[in-house]
């Protein structure tokens, strides 16, 4: 069975779902962050798959998007981890479910 676009899309969907689950349900801030990175990867995979299968050969827009997403992911990771350290410094915890100051 040849590998088609749908294979990659389904794979991306599953990877995205795993990342989403981590982002939604993990207690640890770093765990949440890992989930977000997985989601980024899933999206990137989908971009590349579309670029390979749907766009003409000369078009590298999907690749360029992925490069930008990776850039943003790197920036995001740096800032998020800085925030994590800051939160830990101030609140003695990095449990996401205890970061609930912003309510009511």
């Amino acid at each position, binding site marked *: 069975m040849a590998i088609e676009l749908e294979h990659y899309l389904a794979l991306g969907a599953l990877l995205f779902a795993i990342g*989403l689950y981590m*982002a*939604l*349900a993990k207690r640890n801030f770093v765990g949440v962050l890992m989930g977000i990175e997985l989601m980024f990867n899933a999206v990137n995979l989908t971009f590349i798959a579309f670029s390979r299968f749907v766009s003409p050969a000369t078009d590298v827009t999907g690749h360029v998007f992925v490069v930008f997403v990776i850039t943003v992911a790197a920036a995001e990771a740096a800032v998020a981890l800085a925030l994590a350290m800051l939160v830990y410094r101030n609140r003695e915890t990095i449990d*996401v*479910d205890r*970061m*609930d100051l*912003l309510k*009511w």
Partner: protein
Amino acid sequence: MLNQIPEGVVWAILFLPFGSFAVISLAALLGLTRPSTGSGRAVWRARLSGYLTMAAIAASFLLSLWALDSVLQEDGARIGFDAHEWVVVGPLRVDIGVTVDGLAAIMLIVVTSVSLLVQFYSQGYMRGDPGYNRYYAFMSLFTGSMLGLVLASNILQLFVFWELVGLCSYLLIGFWFYRDSARRAATKAFVVTRIGDVGFLLAILLIWTRTDQLDIGQIQHLAATGMIGSSVITLFALGLFAGAAGKSAQFPLHVWLPDAMEGPTPVSALIHAATMVVAGVYLVARFFPVFIVSEEAINAVVVVGAITAIMAASLAIVATDIKRVMAYSTISQLGYMMMALGVGAIGAAIFHLFTHAFFKALLFLGAGSVNHATGTFDMRKMGGLARFMPMTFLTTTVAGLALVGVFPLAGFWSKDEILIEAWAEKPLIFWTALAGVFLTAVYVGRMLFLTFGGEYKGGEAPATGSPSPDSSGESAKRTGQASEQGAEAGQAKPHESPWVMLLPLVVLATLAATVGFVNITGGMSDILEGWLPEETHELVAAGEFVLWISVVSVAVGLAGLGLAWAIYSRKVIRAEEVSAALEPLQVLLDRKYYLDELYETVILKGVIMRGAAAALHAWDRYVIDGVVNGLASLMRLSSEKFRLAQAGQAQIYGAAIFIGVVAMIAGVLIANP
């Protein structure tokens, strides 16, 4: 003979004053023109805006001469320029362009020349006023707007400039905005003219929906060739006329003009002679082919014009404020022009506009000169000024006689032409006009004799109370001005005005005496009628010169002057006795036909405030506010419950986002299975 004027130059006519306005405004904002005393350079700098304005308008004037020259070569026919696309919104396509024809060329000359002289005069009149730069900025804008109005080739474009003119009049009438009366007068002028503009706007909408045309030339063509239904034409024309009546102070909407005297006198001169009020006449003339094909519309014009002419003249007889006399005189003369248009004599009407511009500007500037000397506008406090200010006296007399229509001054020629045309077309109007001539002569005579004849009555004493309600505002105005003039006002002896003010007077007097000869061969009328569509030519009135009418009109005028002489100079007939004998009439005239009261009490307080406003108030209070307050309470109550959902947990928010995503995808899938 020059080459035909290119389009860019025509635009330059229009944009030179606008440029002056922009430069002055910017400079004033940047503080470059702050008035300062001291070195000559500083003074020069302080007057820079005046010089700039005059330079711009002078350039416009010269270019206007070129335009006139080009038009003369075409015998008044329209010089076509292609319009430029301005706004395209769906089916609406608005072009912007300029058009020059006989009518526009003459108007250009009138506007620029009178404006130029008025600016020159203002150099003296406004010296030292704290709002000097503002004044010249507004004046530039005013002139530019009027030029734009004249040159507009598109009815919407015309409307824009029309409203700009209205705005400028508001700004200039309320120039001394720190005075309550000026503010009120400005607001009144603005609101009253707006009432007419509603009609104008409705007319634009009507013509656009019916013909898909906004180009003036096209509309004229369609109307002249009978492509538009007669009822549409009538409604369109009446709507236009409503706007014209508002701007030109015709009968029901004339009440703003006398109050507009609150502005500086040169502004009054400009408004009355060249810019604002003639805009209405110009509008009717511009759409003359439309009016002429509709019997009802042209009759409305003539009737309103006639009523206005007589009524305003009668009010002028009892007014004590010199500027109010002239204001009513202006209204009356505008009525004349409307009458002339109404009888189909467009050439005569615009010719009268042309001559009237010069002598009316002269009258106002003369009044300003008088006021400069005496510190008051109240004629009862003047008298005998002929001795103190001979130049002013001489020029004002020339203007007055021209207004009455004494041979061979300018007014004679134009008024005579109107009378001839009226006689040829509508004899009833002829008799009305003749009555108007008599009344005109009476109030002109009264004004001249009260002001310049007899003994000097002292002017405005610094500490006297307010002798008349009319002049109280006026006297207060002068105290609001610079101290320089205040000091002059308190002098025992009035004196002649400085040369900056006199020079325009002399120039205008010369013009007022001579411009009548321009049309002695009828050439000007030909130019003015040259642009009309051929289909309408037979509808234009073409009366032949009739000697007896000229003789009669001059005789009636002289009779009026004689009556005034008898009453006010010789006192053969005592004015008080006349008043007593005609008590009800006197009261009626004093109260200005109760029109102000009618507007104020009945319409404003009764209809609008008690009726409409109260209903709207109730609607606002109970329905609109009720809905809003109800919604607010609902929100407050519900948000108290809903805020519990905001747990502060980022993950729950993220979950909400993705629930939304899934819901949206599901929605799309269900919508497009």
